[in-house]
């Protein structure tokens, strides 16, 4: 199966410069960890696991995603999809982020039909991360 150039570029960019592509993590104990929401989706047995973290700040009464990090185990398009999602998240309010649909990722990366589940995984990851962040807030 041949990927679009966009998937290939995104994949290679992530591999060559992981830090620049927002690969990484915030751990418990890190400063600001209480403002980080984490979403993990997928399973090793299925061939893909995506871990997404969003760091939010309250700006003018709204929670905005000021930074995001990810790690992904999976095929090239799963890695590219997570990278693409990260690009789309930064600066968005949680509500805006919640509304990102997998179809946007499919369109941007020109994902082949058989790889659409990678974009669905990305959508699930952001939903989980937002839920996690909100649950932290409730515990405050």
């Amino acid at each position: 199966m041949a990927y679009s150039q966009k998937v290939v570029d995104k994949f290679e960019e992530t591999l060559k410069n992981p830090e620049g592509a927002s690969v990484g993590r915030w751990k418990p104990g890190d400063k600001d960890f209480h403002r980080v929401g984490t979403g993990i989706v997928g399973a090793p047995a299925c061939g893909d696991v995506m871990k997404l973290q969003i760091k939010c700040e309250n700006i003018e009464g709204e929670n905005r995603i000021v930074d995001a990090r990810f790690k992904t185990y999976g095929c090239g398009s799963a890695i590219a999809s997570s990278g693409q999602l990260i690009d789309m998240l930064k600066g968005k309010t949680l509500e805006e982020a919640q509304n990102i649909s997998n179809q946007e990722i499919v369109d941007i990366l020109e994902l082949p039909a058989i790889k659409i589940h990678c974009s669905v995984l990305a959508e699930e990851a952001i939903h989980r991360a937002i839920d996690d962040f909100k649950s932290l807030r409730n515990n405050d």
Partner: protein
Amino acid sequence: MWYNLLEMDKKYLFKRNNVWWVKLAVPVYLREKFGFDLRKSTGEKDLDKALLVRDSILSEFKAKLSKDSDQKSSFETNFSNKTTYFDYASTTPVDERVIEKMKECLSFEGAFGNSGSRSHVYGWKAEELVEEARLNVANLLNCDPREIIWTSGATESDNLAIKGAAYFYQSKGRHIITSKIEHKAVLDVCRQLEKENFEVSYLDPNENGVIPPQAVKDAIREDTVLVSLMQINNEIGVLNDIEQIGLITRENGTIFHVDAAQSAGKIPIDLSNLNVDLMSFSAHKIYGPKGIGALYIRRKPRVRLQPLFHGGGQERGIRAGTLPTHQIVGMGEAFRIAQEQMEIDYKRLTNFRSILWNGLKDMEEVYINGSIENGFPGIFNMSFNFVEGESLIMALKNIAVSSGSACTSASLEPSYVLRALGRPDELAHSSIRFSFGRFTKKEEVENTVDLVKNSVSQLREISPLWEMYQDGIDLDKIEWA
């Protein structure tokens, strides 16, 4: 001076409509842009006058081409950076010697005749070549040439052997034994026979991928008419003990079919010493052309098959259809060369596998799928835990390999072979098959070691599973969403 003139005479010149033209061949790397050559009329009918104009036209051409000479370097780089081929288990390039032989069987000047034509020299010549090829195949396997039937490839041979024997002997019994790690050309035929009320036992391999002869002994019954097992597994390169299994089937009076698509020409096969009744072969796995294969059908004790194709009665009625002389000659030549080179090829492959394994074995969480001890060195299957196979293949972009990962298959299922070995799914997803061959260079294998190391560590850097492993988290205890 006159000598020089003669030398220069007409060089780069040709005549069209009585006028002299200049023609300069374009280097390969610029052909996409300029075509095969540049042409321009001198406008002169006289050779002497044309010669005077020629040089200025030539320098005009050269200036035109040199503007793009920077393309040369990129072309050469691309060419030398050409993708390394480590997928010989999938198919092989055709040996040049084989191509030469095949070319002689196509044109009017060559042996284009129908080997079935008994009434003229064209047919006789083709028949002679077909029989010579059959002898080459028989010699490699130490059997009688009359025991070799041409087919379109190993898939057809498997179909003909399994269905042919099952149908012919169904009154004796309807039980068939095979294994869970056979090629689809065997497994899908067995599935089909199950639909036709045959009973099939699918044996489990041991953790190394070997089918223990004892498992065959335990599964065999009075009504077992056929046992079908492969000699070298195409995914993991593991060898079965055909000799031992043959003793069991012979004692039970059961027909033994062996798929030798991966083994013929690569390891010694002596059919006079093996209790094998049917054996499938393919040409394209051993530097022959695609679209041709053969089936060995034992004469003593005689094995009979119900044909799948009916028609002109070729191949003693077992496989009808005009024989493709050029394909057959190609297979014969490939098998002849294989016999000559087998020992050398095998030693080189063993060396390649050692280089790769010695270079990678110290990495963390690396597993061999199969075993070195029981493995054919041309096929080497490894899993790099916490790295998904397809992404690794993408990272190794200048190396052509294949993976047992679900993502590289249309079905989205990980390799059934690796799962049958008891490998957890995540290791099956993380597998890569390297397969080397006759045209593999030592440097290619050496370079691959570093490339794999780098790519695996790059991918682990972005893998959440690797992160968890490093943190000491037991992945099996996590409830995955």
